């Protein structure tokens, strides 16, 4: 959807509307990105990609919980070299910004992948320092201000494109990590990745995910995600935020905007509501803005902090 009410600008990225595809969802091929764009998304974040190919964990990799999903897919990805072709193709067919999600085991790896992604046409990179289920990367970096700073600095000095840092909720104080990322140069933050979780099959008496632990997503985590966005906005009111976690309808999106997010990313809801969820959110937000007399979604960002 494209109307003046909905356009936003995040760290230099121009979005026709404030909804983006979250990383790891329909995240491999240019054709699927194009489809998601046609379904109404204002930006695309790819599956996280690293230096070398990874096949991920064996199934089960996704388990249904009462109000969400628990996943431990294990970052399957073809490696940035192999993936370059797909990115170039994606860039050639997409009208909306293409954000490449990047992971690595060292700050050098993050920087290397980010550089190649930028060369292949990425409009921005999102650093996955918050995957809760792969060793030596993801949240092991994002839970540690020192490691996080190194990674963000390395990437910032290697690429010219905007650098978005995706934060983990699995920390004592998310504000501390947000501040570290911004101080190291992050242009925007994505808040949040999944919450560490586990499900057991009571009949077979064993954890269901092949990786045992995974990350909880979907409606269950929305109140946690909104709280994290609220906390980050309060501490870092000038840093643009992608709100992420359980967004399923326009009301959810508005909660994130009012908490301080400039845009939202949508993942799990795509399984429950189909990609049409983007269009539905944008319609609902537009109607709300008109009803309340706003000229732009930008006007409501962070508004709940005035109360």
């Amino acid at each position, binding site marked *: 959807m494209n109307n003046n009410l909905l356009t936003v600008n995040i760290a230099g990225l121009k979005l026709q509307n404030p909804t983006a595809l979250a990383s*790891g969802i329909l995240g*491999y*091929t240019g054709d*699927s990105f194009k489809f998601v764009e046609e379904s109404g998304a204002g930006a695309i974040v790819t599956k996280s990609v690293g230096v070398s190919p*990874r096949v991920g964990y064996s199934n089960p990799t996704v388990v249904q919980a009462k109000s969400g999903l628990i996943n431990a897919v294990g970052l399957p990805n073809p490696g940035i070299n192999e993936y370059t072709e797909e990115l170039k193709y994606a860039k050639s067919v997409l009208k909306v910004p293409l954000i490449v999600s990047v992971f690595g085991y060292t700050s050098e790896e993050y920087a290397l992948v980010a550089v190649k992604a930028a060369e292949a046409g990425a409009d921005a990179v999102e650093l996955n320092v918050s995957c809760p289920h792969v060793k030596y990367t993801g949240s092991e970096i994002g839970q540690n201000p020192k490691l996080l700073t190194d990674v963000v600095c390395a990437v910032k000095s290697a690429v010219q494109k905007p650098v978005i840092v995706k934060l983990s909720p699995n920390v004592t104080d998310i504000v501390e990590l947000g501040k570290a990322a911004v101080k190291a140069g992050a242009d925007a933050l994505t808040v949040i990745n999944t919450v560490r979780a586990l499900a057991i099959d009571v*009949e*077979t008496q064993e954890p269901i995910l092949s990786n045992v632990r995974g990350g909880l997503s979907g409606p269950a985590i929305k109140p946690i995600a909104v709280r994290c966005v609220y906390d980050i906005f309060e501490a870092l009111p000038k840093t643009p935020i992608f709100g992420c976690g359980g967004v399923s309808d326009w009301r959810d999106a508005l909660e994130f905007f009012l908490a301080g997010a400039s845009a939202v990313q949508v993942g799990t809801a795509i*399984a*429950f*509501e189909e990609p049409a969820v983007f269009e539905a959110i944008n319609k609902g937000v537009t109607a709300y803005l008109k009803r309340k007399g706003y000229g732009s979604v930008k006007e409501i960002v962070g508004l709940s902090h005035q109360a």
Partner: protein
Amino acid sequence: MEVSKKLSAYLTKLNTIRTTAIKSVKSESPTVKTFTLEDDICSKANPGQFLMLRIPGIDEIPLSILNAGEGQVQFSVKAVGDATRHLHNLTTGDLLGLRGPFGTSFTETRGRVLLIGGGTGTAPLLFLAKRLAAKVDRLSFVIGAKTKNELLYLTELDAVCTDESAIATTEDGSYGLQCLATEPLEKLVDKQKFNMIYTCGPEKMVKSIFNFAEKRKIAMEASLERLIRCGIGLCGSCMIGKYRVCRDGPVFTMARLSEVKDELGMSKLGFDGSRIEV
């Protein structure tokens, strides 16, 4: 809104793993076994839909539904790798996890229909044939395998097919016609006008049937396979063109097959998300 809310509740229930004991196992061929499980939700599946089967501690894999009804569901499994070989070692009383049924099903048509199955791809077609048998004017069923003892469901086939409408083919000629399952196609279609071709099997076979059906302008539906992880249209492992095999498929209509014909029989995503040959 109301619809999507319902879908959401539906999906939660569908997608929640039910762990249940194997009711019975039957050998169909040296490499294929059929399992029967009790599951209310899957027992309401339609032909073409698949389920996700968890082999505890090993893997979770997609399998077409062979039969569903009266609280039970059946599927056939060919031992090809780790998970399927483990499955073959299990027996009555062992626990398996189920979720689903997922995906699209075959459109039921009337008139004259032709079903072409290759290997375990015959399973969803047999399920479909049982539903169609009493309703269509003519039902022709071609099945193929390398050799005689790999031909599946011969008895069941006789039950649903009248007179000479069931044709078996083997590559080595040990039973039925010595040819690929696609060969009888031209003759059958020359003899009479078919309203629909349904197929499932090796993708090269599906591709050649698609080419034929396109040329001869016959409606067609095919069930496709891709790597299935989540099964609910989320992870993107199963893309073909802009479609998700797990949700927009596995059954594809002619129109959709045309849209993805460049990838059909050619490329798919591997376990690491890279493009590999089919």
